[in-house]
């Protein structure tokens, strides 16, 4: 005997159930990776997370896009091959099983079956056969009568539920069909094109016209899923497809213009709908096609589907008024116009070089801090986000609210700052003056930075403080005067913590507690006097003359000035006016494999239900003439649900018995069974 050929051995290996189950479980385990490691993130994020060594290892394993990694696809291909071989091997049997009635069974094997009954009737074989066959036919069984003259008997073979076998075929073919359809829709062809050098992944941030030819995909019938952000009033006829660490650009056979983008809100403030009014212009169209799309309601056109996916600012026009926070650079008297995503050089002192507007939002729906119920959302009005980049390239990001925001019962202009995008914003709370403006606080900052003014106020305070002193008055006054001015300077440089450090460093430990407190009290007095000076109201001479409002303002103003060194910007940018222009984020997909996948899904569902809920049931009745009539041997089997078959067999047996006696009434359900 010769060894089976390699092909034959491979074939039988591929069709083993062990391989199939192993592949199912391997695929399951491999799939976990992509859910644990976030897929298709910017490569620098991965590099930061894993370090250079593991970044390279993971990249070579394709873990950043694991579901199109070669090894993952190999598992899928193996699964499809294994399923195909399995179907190929079993299909002939299965198809036969759907239709074929087994007529070769012998009385001996029927008696060996778990479900069988034997009894005798007095009628003749022909009558009984006719009645039994009529019963099976009436009950929806395919059946066949076979005369066996050699054994002197007649066999009726009956079957129901042959389509159960179709369930096997449908489910397994479905897997192959779905995988093939999905392959058509995958990015594998794109990866192949890249691998062959026909396609280049672009990583630079370029305008559409600058994207080089080798990173463009022409209109074709290949599958893709891309996205594009289009501002209101603008149009585009391309989509960007994320690939590896960059993108490629897909050209579209039509132009998409965005007339309007809208967000509707529920009464509670949560978004209710995102909608875009699109106009499609296409040489093939007589007149442009206008259609509004929203989430769950995409537009399908020429095999392309256009989805509402996201939204962003589309370059809103802004008017900003800078308020100088440093003596060197202000004051400014004019506001200036800019727009979101603009970058412009600034003339704000030695350090700031460039202003970059990064975002603008009309609505900021946040939990209301003044409300007892958390989760009660409120709109806090428009914000701008911008970066101030220094000459050395470092940037801080800011977030300024246009309208005063209430906090603990008082109103403030919020301005957030952070050094990198992973941090949350730390906020500066600028008190609102009597005119509802930030001007009062800026004037206070200006006055504190005015060394001549501070010097004058320090001298004045020193004189008043030491008015009762008689000896060495001149020197004491001079010392106090200098200390007061120095304290203000310290405070401006680093807030109360800087003052604290100074106290720690310069006072002997024994006096620290008493003198430190005195220093702080004097500083507060100084700050109050400077504030009073900015008020320019003759009626107010000392802190005790301030009303409650003013006292609170002073407290908040001092807190804000103390935090200013951490704020790091030379100006406070006030948003005074805006024209909101939004951009809609569209996702554009072309999936030629979709009908195939859906066909596979339909096959899978029908197949699964046939497989589980349509048991194949076979019955045999052998009629053998006897002296006084006929001996009947009845047996049956089912390929599913053995316990259900117990009662089904009993019921069929009872009915068959009645039927061959001519007593079975199909309209009357047998009550004995309930």
């Amino acid at each position, binding site marked *: 005997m010769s060894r089976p050929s390699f092909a034959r051995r491979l074939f039988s290996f591929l069709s083993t159930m062990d391989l199939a189950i192993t592949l199912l479980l391997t695929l399951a385990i491999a799939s976990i990776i992509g859910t644990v490691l976030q897929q298709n993130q910017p490569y620098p994020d991965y590099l930061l997370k894993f370090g250079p060594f593991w970044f390279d290892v993971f990249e070579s394993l394709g873990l950043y896009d694991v579901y199109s990694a070669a090894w993952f696809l190999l598992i899928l291909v193996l699964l499809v091959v294994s399923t195909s071989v399995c179907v190929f091997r079993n299909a002939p049997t299965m198809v036969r099983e759907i239709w074929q009635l087994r007529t070769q069974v012998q009385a001996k094997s029927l008696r060996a079956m778990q479900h069988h009954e034997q009894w005798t009737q007095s009628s003749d074989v022909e009558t009984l056969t006719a009645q039994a066959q009529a019963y099976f036919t009436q009950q929806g069984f395919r059946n066949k009568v076979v005369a066996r003259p050699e054994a002197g008997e007649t066999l009726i073979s009956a079957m129901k539920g042959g389509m159960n076998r179709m369930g096997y075929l449908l489910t397994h073919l479905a897997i192959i069909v779905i995988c093939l359809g999905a392959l058509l829709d995958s990015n594998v062809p794109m990866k192949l094109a890249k691998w062959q050098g026909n396609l280049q992944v672009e990583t630079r941030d370029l305008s559409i016209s600058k994207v080089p030819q080798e990173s463009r995909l022409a209109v074709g019938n290949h599958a893709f899923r891309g996205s594009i952000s289009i501002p209101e009033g603008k149009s585009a006829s391309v989509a960007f497809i994320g690939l590896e660490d960059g993108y490629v650009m897909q050209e579209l056979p039509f132009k998409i213009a965005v007339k309007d983008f809208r967000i509707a809100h529920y009464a509670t403030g949560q978004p209710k709908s995102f909608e875009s009014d699109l106009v499609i212009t296409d040489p093939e169209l007589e007149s442009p096609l206008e259609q509004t799309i929203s989430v*769950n309601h995409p537009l399908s056109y020429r095999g392309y589907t256009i989805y509402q996916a996201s939204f962003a600012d589309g370059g809103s026009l802004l008017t900003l008024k800078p308020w100088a926070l440093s003596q060197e650079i202000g004051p400014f008297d004019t506001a200036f116009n800019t727009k979101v995503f603009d970058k412009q050089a600034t003339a704000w002192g030695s350090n700031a070089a460039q202003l970059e507007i990064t975002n603008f939002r009309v609505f900021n729906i946040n939990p209301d801090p003044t409300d007892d119920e958390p989760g009660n959302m409120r709109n806090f009005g428009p914000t701008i986000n911008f970066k101030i980049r220094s000459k050395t390239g470092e940037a801080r990001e800011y977030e300024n609210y246009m309208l005063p925001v209430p906090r603990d019962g008082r109103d403030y202009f919020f301005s957030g700052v952070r050094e990198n995008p992973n941090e949350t914003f730390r906020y500066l709370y600028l008190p609102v003056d009597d005119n509802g403006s930030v001007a009062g606080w800026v004037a206070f900052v200006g006055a504190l930075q005015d060394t001549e003014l501070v010097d004058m106020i320090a001298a004045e305070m020193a004189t008043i403080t030491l008015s009762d002193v008689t000896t060495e008055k001149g020197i004491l006054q001079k010392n106090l005067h200098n200390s007061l001015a120095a304290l203000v300077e310290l405070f401006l440089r680093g807030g109360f913590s800087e003052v604290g450090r100074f106290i720690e460093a310069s006072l002997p430990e024994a006096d620290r507690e008493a003198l430190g407190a005195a220093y702080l009290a004097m500083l507060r007095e100084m700050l109050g006097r400077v504030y009073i000076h900015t008020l320019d109201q003759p009626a107010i001479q000392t802190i005790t003359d301030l009303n409650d409002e003013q006292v609170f303002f002073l407290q908040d103003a001092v807190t804000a000035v103390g935090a200013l060194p951490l704020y790091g910007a030379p100006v406070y940018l006030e948003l005074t006016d805006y024209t909101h222009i939004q951009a809609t984020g569209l996702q554009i997909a072309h999936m030629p494999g*979709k009908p195939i996948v859906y066909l596979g899904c339909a096959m899978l569902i029908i197949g699964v239900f046939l497989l589980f809920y349509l048991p194949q049931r076979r019955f045999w009745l052998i009629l053998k003439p006897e002296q006084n009539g006929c001996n009947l041997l009845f047996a049956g089997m089912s390929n599913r649900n053995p316990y259900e078959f117990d009662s089904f067999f009993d019921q069929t047996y009872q009915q068959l018995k009645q039927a061959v006696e001519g007593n079975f009434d199909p309209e009357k359900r047998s009550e004995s069974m*309930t």
Partner: protein
Amino acid sequence: MRENTFTLQQGSSPLAVIWVWRGLMLAAAILLLTLYGTVLDGYEITIVVLAAVGLAFLGQNWRGFRWHALITAVLSLWAVKRYGSDLKLADTDFLLNYLLSSQSAIMWMSALFLMAMLAYFTGLFMRSEFSDKVGTGLTWTAVTMGMIGLMVRWRESYLISPDVGHIPVSNLYEVFILFAVITALLYLFYERRYQTRALGGFVLLVISMAVIFQLWYTFGRGANEIQPLVPALQSYWMKIHVPANFVGYGAFSLAAMIGVAYLLKTWQTSSNPQGVLATRLPLLPVMDDLMYKAIALGFAFFTLATILGALWAAEAWGGYWSWDPKETWALIVWLNYAAWLHMRMTKGWHGRPMAWWAIIGLFVTLFAFLGVNMFLSGLHSYGTL
């Protein structure tokens, strides 16, 4: 003859009852479509028709279900009528406040499920048939209260504001109730079919865990408040995708708990053959069959639900498959049970390994259901903790 003496209860109802029931479902569908046909779109009309067909089918040979559906309908409609158009009556109207407002009904459901579990376990360990029967009664009552809670909640959402109104299967809180109700209904179906109440405690154990979680979620996080739908969920697909999924989850849970009972019985049969578990739990082949039935049912519905989810994703997310963590975990669950079914149907594995596998399957399912929402981020973040 037969290998064992166990027989299934087929429980056909009298023909007249079946036809009355079918007529009733037909009448209900016609009434609904006549009254509200104008405000429903084609998909919703299809859903109404399919729901009527489904109820007619479920109830035709299942007396308990018929009563459950009727009582749910009557009490829910009563509650809707009591409400009128004033949601505040939930706190002032006696009937609503103590029984029929969704919050009260759900609290009743929670308490009844916990009591049912105790009754079933008492019945099992004290060998008390009476306590077993009490368990069944309590479970039916709990299911009915839970279903009323969902129905009334549906109405309450519209009372908040017509644009807020939606079917209560939109967040984790709501689907936990759905899970408890569906799992219990599946159990009750098999309880009657297999004529055993001995498994009740085990199944109610997993339901009780869901109930306890839901109670924590209510009192700890205020999750019971009705929230408006995010745009991505505003689709008729939600009405079919979510319930189909929970038939799957419920059936897989049922299978796992039967697996637990199976293992306990094998363990006690060898250590103490006269013990309660060894003697009162159903025969091993019966539990094995039941476990297979539950997994097959779960698999069929989970397949359906995942495909429905893919169809929905093709409308909402820009593609029928995006390898989103939820999608991927659904695939993992599917592959796991596909392997289980192949093992059982073609390799003929039975018994203990399959019971263990069914239990592990529950943990995989649990991660797909909860873990993904808790630990992974993705598009399908509709229920976060």
